[in-house]
């Protein structure tokens, strides 16, 4: 019996341990800064990017705060000491692409993105998705710019936004995540290099799905991207980010900030498919994914929805949040986090209710395989003015590996007695009986495990934009031919 059990376990492991397909590197000529971090480097970054002086001082302020801060240690994570002086804070392909033509992108880089299934050439683009592609520290191209411009939608790299729309940057950057918000946010504010910028004008529904594709290529450089999305009154936008990185035995640091601002009646739907390199099956290598994502529902009836599918990274530290300030504003968080081997994830959501009749929903699905650790950590805070706020949270964990761990840390901080808060949590293990049932019907064990996992996360996967649902499914290593509608 033991051996049979082991057999089943072995088969399951095979299913969930498919080889990382995005682990290649691209040989390109780079213009790098030396490793290390000090005020000089920060000034150099700012100078290299020809930034206005307000941004330069923003960076310096952040750096000075960061120097006095410590890396957070409260998460259920075992984070090896990181030597911040060994990281390269700026790395870019030497040939800087012209902003008006995608033809001038280094063919090697185009090849990389093609290999990743992301085509930047206009004719081969996904039909209704505009893409911004970020390679190490800089954006190498944004598609569909003209079409979007017709609607008044601005979608470009944050570097371009700093050059062309400095007043918007000055008005909004750092207003949701302040430069000293936390250790990694301060680091990002000091050294961020690129990321995406979206601005949706009043009364406009963005006609395309917007998408950013992040790629770490360099071994020693960290990626510190910064994304800022502003949805004006009565506007709406759906945005998706995807991430991959090469296979290295060293760990790469990725410390990003995403800020969303939704004004009155505006809707922002932000989806992430995160597949950074997760390290090998003994836990060597992989990306440290330390991310601060926060959205502000500034106006009445504003709506922000976070959907994330987290399958990569050796360590994930990430708590997408909604500040629900506007009356009747709504925040949502849908998450699937799959960990395997020695991956660690401590992730969840924060819903901060500040305005009256604000509502939020959290639906988190954690899947732990191998010897991985998967924790949900979430905060629901109801401020004293948030009369009649509502929250519903559901955190489900699914244990696949016999040595894996799942934990749930829900925090409630309630200062108003008129609110309604509900929390449900469930932990289940992959069931031998369910597998037996499916295999008896002729479904081989790999596919059966896939079906069970897919079924477990279905509610969340259905929240992803159609165009990316298939890709996300693949990421979960589930080859369920034709079953995903």
């Amino acid at each position: 019996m033991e051996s049979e059990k082991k057999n089943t376990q072995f088969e399951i492991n095979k299913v969930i341990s498919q080889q990382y397909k995005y682990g290649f590197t691209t040989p390109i000529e780079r213009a790098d800064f030396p490793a290390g971090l000090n005020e000089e480097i920060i000034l150099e970054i700012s100078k290299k990017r020809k930034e206005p002086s307000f941004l330069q001082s923003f960076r310096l302020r952040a750096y000075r705060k960061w120097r006095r801060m410590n890396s957070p240690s409260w998460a259920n994570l075992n984070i090896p000491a990181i030597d911040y002086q060994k990281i390269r804070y700026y790395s870019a392909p030497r040939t800087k692409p012209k902003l008006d033509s995608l033809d001038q992108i280094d063919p090697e880089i185009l090849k990389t993105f093609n290999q990743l299934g992301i085509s930047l050439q206009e004719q081969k683009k996904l039909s209704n998705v505009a893409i911004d592609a970020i390679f190490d520290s800089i954006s190498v191209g944004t598609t569909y710019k003209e079409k979007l411009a017709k609607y008044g939608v601005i979608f470009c790299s944050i570097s371009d936004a700093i050059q062309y729309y400095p007043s918007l940057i000055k008005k909004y950057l750092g207003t949701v995540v302040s430069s000293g918000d936390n250790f990694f946010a301060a680091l990002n504010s000091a050294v961020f290099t690129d990321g995406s910028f979206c601005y949706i004008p009043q009364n406009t529904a963005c006609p395309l799905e917007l998408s950013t594709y992040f790629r770490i290529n360099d071994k020693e450089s960290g990626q510190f991207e910064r994304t800022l999305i502003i949805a004006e009154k009565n506007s709406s936008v759906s945005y998706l980010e995807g991430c991959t990185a090469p296979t290295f035995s060293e760990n790469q640091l990725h410390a990003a900030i995403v800020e969303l601002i939704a004004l009155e009646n505006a809707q922002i739907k932000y989806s992430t498919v995160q597949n950074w390199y997760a390290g090998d099956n003994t836990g060597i290598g992989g990306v440290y994914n330390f991310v601060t994502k926060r959205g502000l529902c500034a106006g009445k009836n504003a709506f922000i929805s976070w959907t994330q599918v987290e399958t990569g990274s050796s360590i994930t530290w990430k708590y997408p949040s909604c500040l629900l300030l506007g009356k009747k504003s709504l925040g949502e968080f849908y998450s699937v986090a799959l960990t395997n081997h020695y991956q660690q994830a401590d992730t969840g959501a924060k819903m901060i209710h500040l305005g009256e009749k604000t509502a939020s929903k959290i639906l988190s699905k954690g899947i732990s395989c191998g010897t991985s650790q998967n924790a949900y950590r979430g905060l629901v805070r109801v401020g004293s003015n948030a009369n009649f706020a509502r929250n519903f949270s559901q955190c489900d964990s699914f244990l696949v590996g016999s040595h894996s761990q799942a934990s749930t840390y829900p925090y409630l901080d309630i200062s108003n007695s008129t609110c309604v808060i509900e929390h449900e949590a469930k932990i289940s293990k992959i069931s031998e009986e369910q597998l037996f049932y499916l295999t008896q019907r002729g479904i081989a064990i790999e596919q059966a495990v896939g079906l069970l996992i897919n079924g477990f996360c279905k509610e969340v996967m259905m929240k992803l934009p159609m165009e990316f649902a298939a890709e996300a499914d693949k990421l979960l290593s589930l080859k369920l031919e034709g079953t995903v509608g």
Partner: protein
Amino acid sequence: MNTELLSIKNLNVSIEETLILQNLNFTVKENEIHVIMGPNGSGKSTLSKVLAGHPAYKIQKGDVSFCGKNLLRMPPEERSHNGLFLAFQYPLEISGVTNYDFLRIAYNEKQKFLKKPELDPIQFIELVQDLLKKLQIKNEFLTRNLNEGFSGGEKKRNEILQMLLLSPKLIILDEIDSGLDIDALKIICKEIKDSLPANSSLILITHYPRILEYLKPTKVHIMMEGTFTQTGGMELVNLLEKSGYQFAIN
């Protein structure tokens, strides 16, 4: 002479060091209906799970051949593809997987194994709708999650739907009659009888003789402590009704 479908010889099976089946001998030929009755814990369900390849059981000794092949060597899905079907006493609930997706995957996996063409979703819905009609099941059955929130009767009907879909050679019905009302039992038995694929056979595990009014057994076996102590015809069932399992103790 009918050819042999299943042949079990001197089978001993244990789970966690406890012997559940011992010295079991059992032969099923084509076009037969075998009934296995016995007290709770006598090993009836164990036998069905062992035949279907449940990983928790350990075969201590014995041989099982199915259509001339060594059954014990095959993983569960291969046993299924070769025509062995087990209708579960307690069908499992699987959330997030629609009945329709599940049925289509199961069907197409068998087609693949038999090197026959797989059906696309539209072709498949035609096929399955015919079967739904036969079993008097509503269409919305397909869009619900597999067995999730199904009543006892709905679960059993779903088992029969799967059986019809996979057209197996040997069908084990593990207490298909439990949790069914009389009308539902009638429909299901009629459907089983009418739709049995050519030359296929049934093994019925049951506590209640009522089902035998609809499905006439070729042979009746009484199972006690992991082996057949009596084999005969309907007279055994009548004896059982009169005096309980007492009579069957050797």
